[in-house]
């Protein structure tokens, strides 16, 4: 095992994938609890499709992908949260509209401009997709997400748990909802190169859902979901080194396994208590 690990780490692209992947898994699982509990599980899916559209646009005009995708997806996230609060279109319907439209526009851009990109790797991710300059942007934005999350942890908890109460005690709920949207958008864009547009949302929702099966406290859920997320990511990456399977898909399946195991453990625990 150690020799295999050493061999893995001797490849530059694996090191890059490992670094970015670990940071993205960490950030995604932090935000996951809040998003799942606020019934925004599908937001990751919607935003990643917007990200796909933005990346296609960037490729068509030879722009740096992340510098186009991050602002566009952040705008989409704000749009989603704002609109679903004030309009008749509820969250899930709105996400469905935005995600399929962005996907369609992305496909049209790619075919009209004859962009030479690997659609498969955009959709399902690739550990080869990360370039050196992406790594720097990814690391900086991930660290910013972690710092902001820790600083506003208590307020994010309060706004997630009870928005009306938070508002009444003078917490600026709009500001913190905006913050959650912003952080989510950044994580999605940074992570979708690795995981793919179709699979990135699993990184957001799985670890939190898994942790919620077995943990009683919010802090417990937060910490345990980070641990699960990181363990599943590393496991998935190691497996793909042995087997000819795509990394993103493998990580999702490992996440699913962890979810099923923890569901079982949770059921047994509550049965024992009774």
């Amino acid at each position, binding site marked *: 095992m150690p020799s295999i690990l050493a061999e893995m780490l001797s490849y530059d692209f694996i090191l890059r994938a490992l670094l970015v992947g670990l940071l993205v898994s960490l950030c995604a699982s932090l935000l996951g*609890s809040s998003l799942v*509990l*606020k*019934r925004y599980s599908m937001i990751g899916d919607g935003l990643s499709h917007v990200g796909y559209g933005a990346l296609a646009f960037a490729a068509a005009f030879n722009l740096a992908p992340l510098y186009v995708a991050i602002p566009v997806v952040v705008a989409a996230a704000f749009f989603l949260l704002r609109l679903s609060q004030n309009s008749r279109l509820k969250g899930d319907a709105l996400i469905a509209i935005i995600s399929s439209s962005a996907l369609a526009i992305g496909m049209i851009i790619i075919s009209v401009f004859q962009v030479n990109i690997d659609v498969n790797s955009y959709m399902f991710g690739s550990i080869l997709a990360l370039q050196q300059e992406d790594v720097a942007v990814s690391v900086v934005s991930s660290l910013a997400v972690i710092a902001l999350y*820790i*600083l*506003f*942890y*208590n*307020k994010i*908890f*309060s706004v*997630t*748990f*009870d928005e*009306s*109460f*938070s*508002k*009444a*005690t*003078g*917490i600026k709920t709009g500001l913190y909802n905006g913050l959650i949207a912003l952080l989510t958008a950044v994580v999605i864009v940074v992570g979708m190169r690795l995981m793919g547009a179709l699979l990135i949302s699993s990184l957001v929702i799985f670890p939190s859902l898994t*942790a*919620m099966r077995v*943990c*009683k*406290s*919010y*802090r*417990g*859920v937060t910490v345990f979901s980070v641990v699960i997320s990181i363990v599943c990511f590393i496991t998935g990456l190691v497996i793909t080194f042995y087997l000819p399977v795509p990394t993103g898909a493998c990580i999702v399946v490992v996440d699913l396994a962890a979810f099923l195991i923890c569901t079982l453990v949770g059921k047994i625990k509550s049965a024992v208590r009774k």
Partner: protein
Amino acid sequence: MSYEGVAAFKDISFSVESGDYLLILGENGSGKSTLVKGILGLKEPSAGKIAFNGITPRQIGYLPQQNAIQKDFPATVQEVVLSGCLGAGGFCPFYTKKQRQAADKSIRHLHLEDIRKKSFRDLSGGQQQRVLIARALCATDKMLLLDEPVTGLDAVMTAELYDITEHLNKVHKTTIIMISHDIANALKYANKVLHLSAGNSFFGTAEEYVRTDFYKNMTGGGNNAEYSC
């Protein structure tokens, strides 16, 4: 401590003094939630005013209507109660010792010591309401605003909830404002009643209220407007 409100939805003035127990009644759509927002300082009344004397909207403990998100929320009683202290903290990212002490006091106050490590989602409906009252009392014990607190509770839990409000009102001199549909029970505890209605509204003492047509209609003595649709 008193305020008078003349809101746009109808011409009615009312005042609450320190130590009062005010029951707010009214059909759906009569403007109860607008009034709640006004009292909490979240919405300026479009006409009339709400005047606070010796209290600010931030010093009102608030128990909102139950929401679906909380039913399966993984958080301990301690975490939920502590979050009630946040409003006073400003930009400080972490809880101060003072805030933790306030939460502890609140937990003792509502006898939650034994379940403080339990998960909110594993509690009964009545226990959950007790936790949320404890959270509301973190910031203040001057005034408590409860928005339909007994909805979905069984008879035993409902009685327990009224006992808590009565205890807070009588022993701790907390001013209580309760919005409720449960007129028969709530009237036993309130000393003042505000009845909002599309036509004319009523404000007065509980004794006066039971002699009005509002009361007769609400309790089924007359033609009940709520059943006519």
